[in-house]
């Protein structure tokens, strides 16, 4: 019995301890490697899930907006050429604006407005900026208002100073093909001109701004780390408009009137009676399809994915 009692407290032999430590080290190394590998795979999987989830949100939003962009919806497409580097100094960008309810560039005329022919509805804006690799989105305010903090006497002796006002978007803009930013801001309520009588009265009311400025004020990031993004608009006459950061362009697609001047009925002989008139008409320049492609990159995993979606507008499909 004594030898047994003496041997037991001595524990493991040196060989056993060394073998155990070796096994432990091997297991620890294998476990650590497996852990970090699994961690990397999980991070990549989660990044991929986030990319697909954001793609679904973008698809749903754009699809809904395209579906309701019927003939009454004017559109502005703007491209600004960049240097293609995607760095912070890259000025490349593009803009897409849906102006629902704006069926003609003449809808600013008071006479037409009084006939109830034109009403501006909600506008939506998409903008991609290459410098910060962000896709932005905005929906216009349904109403705006504020307080006139300075004296304003437009006529007679009534002073509107220190009064509150509220107004809805009204059709008081002409949609210029070359300067949409300028003309689409024409609907400010109070004049912004300097005069001895009315010194910059709009400055007395910071909330009095135009509809284009309203969209810009409400721009919010819809998706970040968008390293490339482009649009292609296919018009009903087959013309393709590329909207990206490789060229500086401005294209205005006017809303089409639905008063019979350009019938959408393909069985109507008037529809194809005059090829020149049709090609120049607002209806021929209505978009039939919008193609949208973007590349998003996950900063942590450097995982990159390109998504391409096409959205049908309220029109029939083109030829095969």
């Amino acid at each position: 019995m004594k030898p047994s009692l003496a041997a037991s407290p001595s524990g493991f032999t040196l060989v056993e301890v060394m073998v155990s430590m070796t096994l432990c080290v091997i297991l620890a190394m294998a476990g650590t490697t497996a852990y970090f590998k699994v961690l990397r795979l999980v991070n990549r999987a989660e990044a991929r899930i986030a990319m697909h989830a954001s793609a679904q949100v973008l698809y749903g939003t754009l699809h809904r907006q395209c579906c309701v962009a019927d003939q009454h919806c004017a559109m502005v497409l703007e491209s600004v050429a960049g240097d293609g580097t995607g760095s912070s100094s890259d000025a490349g960008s593009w803009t897409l604006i849906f102006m629902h309810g704006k069926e003609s560039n003449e809808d600013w005329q008071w006479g037409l407005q009084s006939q109830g022919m034109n009403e501006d509805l909600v506008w939506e804006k998409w903008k991609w900026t290459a410098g910060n690799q962000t896709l932005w989105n905005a929906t216009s305010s349904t109403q705006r208002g504020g307080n006139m903090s300075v004296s304003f006497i437009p006529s007679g002796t009534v002073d509107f100073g220190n009064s509150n006002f509220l107004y809805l978007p009204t059709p008081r803009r002409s949609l210029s093909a070359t300067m949409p930013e300028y003309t689409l801001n024409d609907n400010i309520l109070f004049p912004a001109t300097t005069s001895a009588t009315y010194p910059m009265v709009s400055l007395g009311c910071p909330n009095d701004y135009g509809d284009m400025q309203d969209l810009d004020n409400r721009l919010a990031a819809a998706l970040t780390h968008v390293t490339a993004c482009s649009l292609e608009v296919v018009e009903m006459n087959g013309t393709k408009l590329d909207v990206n950061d490789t060229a500086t362009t401005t294209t205005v697609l006017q809303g089409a009137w639905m008063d019979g001047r350009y019938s959408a009925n393909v069985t109507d002989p008037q529809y194809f009676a005059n090829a020149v008139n049709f090609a120049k008409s607002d209806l021929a320049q209505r978009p039939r399809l919008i193609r949208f492609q973007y590349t998003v990159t996950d900063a942590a995993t450097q995982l990159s994915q390109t998504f391409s979606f096409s959205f049908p507008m309220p029109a029939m499909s083109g030829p095969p």
Partner: protein
Amino acid sequence: MRTVAEGMGSDRDHVTAIRGGFTFIETLACLLVLVFGLSAVLGLVMWGEHLAGDAQARSTAMLTAVTVAVDPTPLQTPVTQSAWTYTPYPMDASGTQASTATGFLNGYYIVRTENSADIDVVARDPGTNYVYARSANVRVDVYDSMSGTVQASYSTRLVRQRTGP
């Protein structure tokens, strides 16, 4: 027959053996069980991520199918553009017409088929034989580009309109 002393001695040996801790084999067995347990946990985590990713991918696959159904030539990257094939049929043609588009889009392999017969012609000018409008059956199958399994299938009917006179 064991004596009392032998019995006490045997118990003492047993106590001593317990105090000696685990045997080498027991330690190895414990480590093995631990490794299996951790592996199972990591495997479950990976499997959960796989299921979540698969669900998201199937949803995106359906959006891709709808995209290709309405547009057989979507925007492509230079890499996928070269592998994309599409052969359209003439708008004014008579008889049963068919076209097929195949290629990679959004990480999936796409097969799109379109068929349009004489009965699908909505408006044809008897003088010029121009077809102003015709409908077509479209089917899109979206496959996982790695495993080849079907991720989504979509069928619809399009009305195609002549671009101009």
